[in-house]
């Protein structure tokens, strides 16, 4: 009997949830640290196995498997359901999520080996919750469940960015990430509710059926899709919401690999891919998506060129690649974007984990304090190089075909503007990534000079868990331990496999079958542009034929602007401090002096009136009799006169 993929997916979904509940409720077990970590890894392994089996069971079939439970009962049909929707897209995404989650959890065993047991238990509790929420998002059959899981992954992101919460930058970054994404999420929620009002359902399958039978009311649909896009832009760090992602690098590096490179930030792309039939009805919104995506890609790529922090380079690179995916979706080829999402998930996780290995060994994020690492840590250098070549889109490496597909999609979608921008970004991508490679792994070493110094500068009072990153644990550099090396090698092998397979045989997934007619010159020119980028980086940072300083001064104003992050953060601060706070002060003044003032006046008048009136209460019975007599007289007069 063929196993039902829905049940398998459900098993996969519930294993991390079980792990989370056990770790969250059984506190003594969580505080043991290592055993809790092993338990979480075990559950993640089970989840990955179940996800692979679900994918195999789903096979080539495009018929979705639905498992639904009523959540909010309504009249006639239920208002909202929870459950799993298993189709080719969600199973592939599920595999990616469980795979990266598993590898990151294994990697963290080595990376966080200096963490006290309590912290380690807490870390794995969050990791389990994140795995569950992300899988719930991926498998979600309706927008309501998707939104809930969306918020849950946001919460996990907040918790994990702020994992080293005694460090002020980490706490700040966590809050910043939370609020910036919330800004988009408000739009998302409004979009869902508006969609429900016009369509009467949250269910993706029903919505799809309505779109296909053209029964969905088109009035106001642009606003709905734009609102949904806002949510996706917040999560997927599109301009101007991209500001949170580089700061999110304050979290532990494995967290950056899992949440801020491979899975959570791609949730926005996934959402747009899932609802691409809805967006297809609103071409004006799609145009915005494409242009904003291309612009984000360019902006982030330029920013990545001037960063010295290895994780920030990777973070901006992620923003840039998310811009690529969004642009492809905007061009109407969401499958191309989704394909890039998958390959990017593999090689970006690889790059982050590689960077983590470097940081673990060197004890700093600063690439100017690295150099010559290839001799000391050859395996790390090789896997990092594989990731870099994948990102640059070189043939036989992971990102090659997916990047070509996106460029082809832009061309086929009739968007020459974003196409040109993305070509430029392809050049910049190759340049900034190889800048990191040459500065960190080749050339003269700058490690020794800064080595002991960093440990010394750790403040003694908060030195316990407040390391910037886990410090160097031995004076000589070497490749990371097996628990960290294994995930690196797995991801490198997968990136290579995807690259070779897709270069030689064709797209890995049937859904991506060439749906666009790219001109013949596209592939050579895209690869050529990347190679030029690599060459420029080589000449500048390896051979020193071009002086990096003169290169920098050639782009003086752009460089200054990029170092200031194009003032986007400042714009946010300006809006907050000047506009919002001023408005808040005006509102506060109005409330204090006008609204409260009227109330205080009324109450003061009442008091005075009461005070004045009590003087007629003399307490003397004769006065009252006098009053009664006058009253009776008045009544008599009134009756006589009227």
């Amino acid at each position, binding site marked *: 009997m063929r196993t039902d993929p829905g049940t398998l997916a459900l098993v996969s979904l519930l294993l991390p949830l079980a792990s989370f509940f056990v770790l969250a409720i059984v506190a003594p077990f969580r505080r043991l640290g290592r055993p809790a970590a092993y338990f979480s890894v075990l559950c993640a392994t089970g989840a990955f196995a179940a996800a692979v089996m679900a994918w195999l069971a789903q096979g080539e079939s495009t018929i979705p498997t639905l498992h639904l439970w009523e959540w909010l009962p309504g009249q006639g049909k239920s208002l909202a359901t929870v459950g799993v929707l298993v189709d080719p897209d969600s199973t592939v995404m599920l595999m990616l999520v469980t795979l990266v989650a598993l590898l990151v959890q294994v990697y963290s065993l080595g990376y966080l080996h200096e963490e006290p047991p309590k912290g380690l238990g807490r870390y794995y509790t969050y990791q389990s919750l994140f795995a569950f929420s992300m899988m719930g998002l991926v498998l979600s059959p309706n927008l309501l469940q998707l939104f809930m899981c969306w918020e849950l992954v946001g919460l996990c992101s907040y918790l994990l960015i702020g994992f080293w919460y005694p460090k002020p930058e980490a706490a700040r970054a966590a809050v910043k990430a939370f609020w910036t994404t919330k800004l988009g999420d408000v739009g998302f929620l409004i979009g869902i509710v508006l969609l429900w009002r016009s369509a009467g359902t949250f269910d993706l399958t029903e919505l799809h059926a309505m779109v296909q039978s053209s029964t969905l009311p088109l009035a106001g649909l642009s606003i709905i899709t734009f609102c949904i896009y806002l949510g996706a832009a917040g999560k997927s760090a599109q301009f101007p919401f991209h500001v949170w992602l580089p700061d999110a690098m304050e979290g532990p590096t494995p967290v950056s690999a899992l949440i801020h490179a491979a899975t959570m930030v791609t949730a926005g792309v996934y959402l747009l891919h899932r609802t691409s039939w809805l967006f297809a009805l609103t071409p004006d919104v799609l145009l915005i998506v494409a242009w904003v995506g291309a612009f984000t890609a360019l902006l982030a790529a330029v920013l990545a060129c001037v960063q010295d922090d290895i994780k920030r380079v990777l973070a901006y690179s992620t923003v840039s690649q998310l811009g690529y995916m969004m642009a492809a979706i905007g061009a109407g080829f969401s499958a191309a974007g989704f394909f890039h999402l998958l390959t990017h998930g593999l090689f970006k996780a690889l790059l982050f984990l590689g960077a983590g290995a470097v940081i673990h060994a060197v004890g700093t994020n600063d690439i100017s304090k690295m150099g010559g690492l290839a001799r000391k840590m050859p395996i790390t250098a090789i896997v990092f190089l594989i990731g870099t070549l994948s990102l640059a889109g070189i043939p036989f490496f992971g990102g090659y075909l997916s990047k070509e597909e996106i460029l082809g999609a832009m061309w086929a979608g009739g968007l020459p503007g974003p196409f040109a921008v993305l070509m430029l970004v392809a050049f910049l991508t190759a340049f900034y990534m190889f800048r990191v490679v040459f500065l960190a792994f080749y050339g003269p070493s700058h490690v020794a000079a800064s080595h002991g110094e960093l440990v010394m500068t750790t403040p003694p009072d908060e030195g316990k868990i407040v390391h910037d990153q886990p410090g160097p644990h031995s004076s000589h550099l070497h490749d990371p331990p097996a628990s960290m090396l294994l995930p690196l090698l797995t991801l490198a092998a997968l990136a290579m496999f995807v690259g070779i397979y897709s270069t030689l045989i064709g797209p890995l997934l049937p859904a991506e079958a060439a749906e666009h007619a790219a001109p013949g010159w596209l592939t050579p020119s895209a690869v050529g542009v990347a190679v030029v980028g690599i060459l420029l980086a080589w000449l500048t940072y390896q051979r020193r034929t071009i002086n990096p300083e003169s290169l920098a001064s050639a782009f003086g104003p752009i460089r200054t602007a990029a170092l200031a992050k194009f003032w986007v953060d400042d714009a946010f601060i300006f809006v907050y401090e000047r506009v919002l706070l001023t408005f808040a002060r005006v509102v506060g003044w109005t409330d204090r002096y006008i609204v409260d003032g009227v109330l205080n006046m009324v109450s003061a008048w009442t008091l005075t009136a009461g005070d004045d009136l009590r003087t007629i209460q003399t307490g003397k019975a004769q006065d009252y*009799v006098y009053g009664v007599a006058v009253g009776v007289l008045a009544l008599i007069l009134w009756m006589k006169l009227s």
Partner: protein
Amino acid sequence: MGLQPFLVLSSALFCIGLFGVITRRNTIGILLGIELMLNSVNINLVAFSRFNGSVAGMVFTVFTISITVAEMALGLAIVILLFRVRRTAMADHLDLLKG
């Protein structure tokens, strides 16, 4: 002699009584004022009874007189008790109801 002189007399008596009730400081004086007002009512009742040829008014008057006696006995008792407790029988000193 018609009904009117009787009514004028009773009204005058009522007003005198009311004036006494309102102006007298001594509580016993107030009780006397009340007595005058009740008697003006009695005159009214008897006058109407006489001119309407009905006995009901006279019967009522008999009731009123007896009730008045009881009321006076009670009122004087209260005044005496008040005097014992407060050492005064002046109405304007008794202002416990003052707001």
